[in-house]
């Protein structure tokens, strides 16, 4: 049975807008084809998720290479050096923006959770199913955004 899901082109547009807003236009976010089921290909990862509940239920997750996370944090905080708590804050705000805008594409009304952030790969509940995935490169480093809903 098909799951109600955002269009991948819409997810890409959202992520691209967030990236350009906070990282500028100099280094574009480049989409890349990655076969389904391929693990996120980075040894050092930050991940963050937000959940949407209500008219549509799902989870939006962002995974970024640690170098992307560090640069994102430097740009957002306007500082040259970053601590882990800074990175967690910045990556959390990133998924908040992506998740909030994905929520706006789906049937409402619904509620967005506060972000949860981890230094490491995201783990997904076995009863959830991936309904959209964007793989991209930024400054040569991998970025992944996934949308999951509960399996029907």
């Amino acid at each position: 049975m098909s799951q109600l899901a955002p269009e991948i082109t819409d997810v890409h547009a959202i992520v691209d807008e967030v990236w350009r807003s906070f990282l500028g236009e100099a280094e574009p976010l480049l989409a890349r084809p990655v076969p389904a089921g391929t693990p996120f290909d980075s040894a050092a990862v930050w991940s963050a998720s937000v959940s949407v509940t209500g008219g549509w239920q799902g989870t939006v997750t962002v995974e970024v290479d640690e170098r992307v996370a560090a640069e994102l944090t430097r740009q957002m905080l306007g500082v040259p050096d970053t601590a882990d708590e800074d990175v967690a804050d910045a990556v959390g705000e990133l998924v908040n923006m992506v998740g909030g805008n994905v929520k706006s594409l789906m049937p409402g009304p619904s509620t967005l959770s506060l972000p949860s952030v981890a230094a490491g790969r995201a783990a997904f509940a076995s009863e959830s199913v991936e309904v959209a995935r964007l793989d991209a490169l930024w400054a040569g480093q991998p970025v992944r955004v996934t949308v999951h809903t509960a399996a029907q």
Partner: protein
Amino acid sequence: MRAMIIDDSRAMRSILRRILAGLDFETAEAGHGQEALDQMTAGPVPDLCLVDWNMPVMDGYTFISTVRRNAEWRNVTLMMVTTESEHTQIVRALAAGAHEYVIKPFTPDAIVDKLELLGLVSKGALA
């Protein structure tokens, strides 16, 4: 002019602080609505509050509703800056007393445009 930035993300507060500093605002910051109310009660009262919606302890909607119930704070301009972009939520926030609404992500120009509409900065203030 004094502004208070109310957002649980330090990164977002930093971004907004730099924009407002470029507009010659003095800024204070709070990580949630209750912290902002405590600061306003202690004074000084800001001219402008930029308010996120989803925050721990007290969310932005509750903060705005609370501020609007206090006659002493009737001159405070309230602007939501949030990822919440459902039409019903925008209407709800404006009905509760928000003057303007900015959806994240935003550009500095988007913030300046709203502040111009509110008469808090002059045109081209960030140039």
